[in-house]
């Protein structure tokens, strides 16, 4: 019995230190512990808070739907940053690329009048291209002038923000009397069963089916499915195609890649284009699926910065971004629940938790040290 226990301990140690996923799970657990410490210090009951969060995320179909809706853009901005990381670039610009994507989607969604099945793809593709070009600009500046992508993308974020605000104050785009744009045409709306659930027959049916009624209360849309497909596509491109091989080679060692005959500058631009396109897709899906318009923004909304955390928690793994994005979305949505009665704790504890998770992820050695000490103790007994 004792031996088995020792073996279990050893296998936990191996799982936590040698498998990335084990290490990530331990970091998440430690992040929850840090969050609990803050809650206790501030006089809250952490178990109650976490229980309320858990119920607030999973106990109703609509809650799960909201969590998924929150996670969708984060999965995509996370993918954008993870993709750039894999190719040796740090895309702080997902924030601005998201903005460009949502602006382009709103413009094409409102100004164009197209049939139902054509309109949505046109909106999404034009948003993706616009945001891809926006990201590609930073890549071009780096390739051509040696401008560090961290600086150029930070500047481009702000330019994008003011561009959106500029458009919102532009006649023809601004909805009179408000600080928002016009809403997109119904043909560009990607919400599931939008017209049906407001129709007479739909309302009647939903009245008799409370599960579906609750679920369809939310702006449920196809965005999540698209995000998952994109994650698979990114994984495939990076790992199974020649393009992905070249991009990763540049990220791994750009001098060796150049020596091996890869056009480094071209690949930098391509990589930033793709990263921008992914973040732009997040913005486009947010518009066609959830918000249907863009509004005046005073400060960065954080989709891009949260995406950095998603990419880091996912260890820049494309498929991991799905899980990390869901975790992030769940924490953010659950965080709004602890702000309300009965806990009434500051929802910012979520940022503290996420910060702690990322912090622990940055120091694999610490966890190794802690666990190996325990392991040794177990061994000498």
């Amino acid at each position, binding site marked *: 019995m004792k031996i088995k226990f020792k073996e279990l301990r050893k296998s936990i140690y191996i799982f936590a230190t040698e498998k990335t996923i084990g290490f990530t799970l331990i970091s998440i657990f430690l992040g929850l512990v840090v969050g609990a410490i803050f809650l206790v210090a501030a006089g809250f009951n952490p178990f109650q808070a976490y229980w309320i969060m858990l119920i607030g995320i999973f106990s109703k179909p609509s809650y799960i739907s909201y969590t998924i809706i929150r996670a969708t853009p984060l999965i995509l901005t996370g993918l954008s940053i993870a993709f750039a990381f894999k190719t040796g670039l740090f895309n702080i610009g997902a924030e601005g690329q998201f903005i460009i994507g949502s602006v382009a989607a709103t413009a094409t969604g409102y100004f164009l009048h197209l049939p139902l099945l054509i309109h949505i793809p046109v909106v999404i593709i034009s948003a993706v291209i616009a945001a891809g070009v926006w990201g590609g600009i930073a890549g071009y500046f780096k390739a051509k002038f040696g401008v560090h992508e961290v*600086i150029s993308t930070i*500047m*481009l*974020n702000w*330019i994008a923000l003011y*561009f959106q605000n500029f458009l919102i104050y532009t006649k023809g785009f601004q909805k009179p009397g408000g600080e928002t744009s016009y809403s997109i045409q119904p043909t560009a709306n990607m919400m599931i069963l939008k017209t049906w659930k407001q129709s007479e027959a739909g309302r009647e049916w939903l009245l008799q089916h409370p599960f579906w009624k609750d679920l369809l209360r939310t702006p449920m849309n196809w965005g999540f499915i698209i995000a998952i497909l994109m994650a698979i596509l990114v994984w495939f491109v990076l790992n199974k195609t020649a393009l992905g091989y070249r991009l990763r080679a540049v990220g791994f060692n750009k001098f060796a890649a150049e020596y091996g005959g890869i056009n480094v500058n071209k690949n930098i631009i391509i990589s930033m284009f793709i990263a921008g396109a992914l973040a732009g897709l997040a913005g486009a899906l947010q518009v066609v699926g959830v918000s249907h318009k863009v509004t005046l923004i005073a400060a960065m909304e954080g989709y891009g910065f949260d995406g950095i955390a998603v990419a880091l928690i996912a260890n820049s793994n494309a498929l991991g971004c799905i899980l990390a994005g869901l975790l992030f979305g769940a924490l953010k949505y659950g965080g709004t629940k602890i702000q309300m009665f009965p806990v009434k704790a500051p929802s910012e504890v979520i940022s503290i938790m996420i*910060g702690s998770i990322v*912090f622990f992820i940055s*120091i694999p*050695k610490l966890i190794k040290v802690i666990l190996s000490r325990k392991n040794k103790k177990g061994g000498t007994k």
Partner: protein
Amino acid sequence: MIDTILSNIALIIGTTLMYSTPLIYTSLGGVLSENSGVINIGLEGMMIIGAFAGAAIGYFVGDPWIAFIGAGIVGGLFGLLHAFACVTFGANQVVSGIAINFLGAGIALFLSRMLFEGATMTKSIALDNKMPRPLNGVFHDGSFLNIIFNNQYATVYLAFIMVFLIWFFMYKTKYGLRLRSVGEHPTAADTLGINVIKIRYLAVIMSGVFSGFGGAAMSLAIVSNFRPTLVSGHGFIALAAMIFGKWKPQGALLACLLFGGAQGLAVFLGQFDFEISSQLISMLPYVITIVVLIGFVGKSAAPSADGIPYEREQKN
């Protein structure tokens, strides 16, 4: 005519100084950390917590200098956290820095809600308890110098003194030489008996202190409270200014002044009733920065060991 031109120029210089100051402190923090070989992308988070600490201490204690120093100490604690991860545990420095950004913003807002009855905005500091304005009323009313300096807070002058001190420290003292050698070639420095770990710890802690000052220069002088949108990206701009300034204090100063100057120009143009939207004018600082980077600044090189954790070879 000449009078109006002069007073307009004075106005632009004045706003330039005002906008540049928080950036100068924070980018000096970046200079110290990165020259010791530790990337600090957490400047934003350190600036946020500093801005909050300055506003909160200023509100409760009342003395702006205690608040300013307190903001530095709180920023320094976050620097310590970053150093702990990066120096002792060889962390991925970018990852740790991003964590600091989340922690800084999260803890600042969490504490604000606890201390200020659930509000994310701290209560305003009384006007008398803000940073003093040393040259207020010294120059003749309406004169060129008066327009520039009348409303400048003490933090502005202190920022320039700090740039000089850091420059002097880095390039004219042996400790500065040690700092730079640790960032360029830690193994060689270690061989010569320099304590790499200690120097990196101190440098990263000081980068937190300076970022804290940067945040407090906003919340104690430019405005008189902390709110969630106060810092909103200025830490990242300070980071950009440091890279732009080629990792040197004097370079960072110029980059911050350029940015602040563009900001001042935008404010100046904003007061006219142009056909151009104020939103487009607000883009100016960012566009100018990119244009300058493309046109006038060559490739910049970080200290050679920037971002690489230092580990002594194991003795068996």
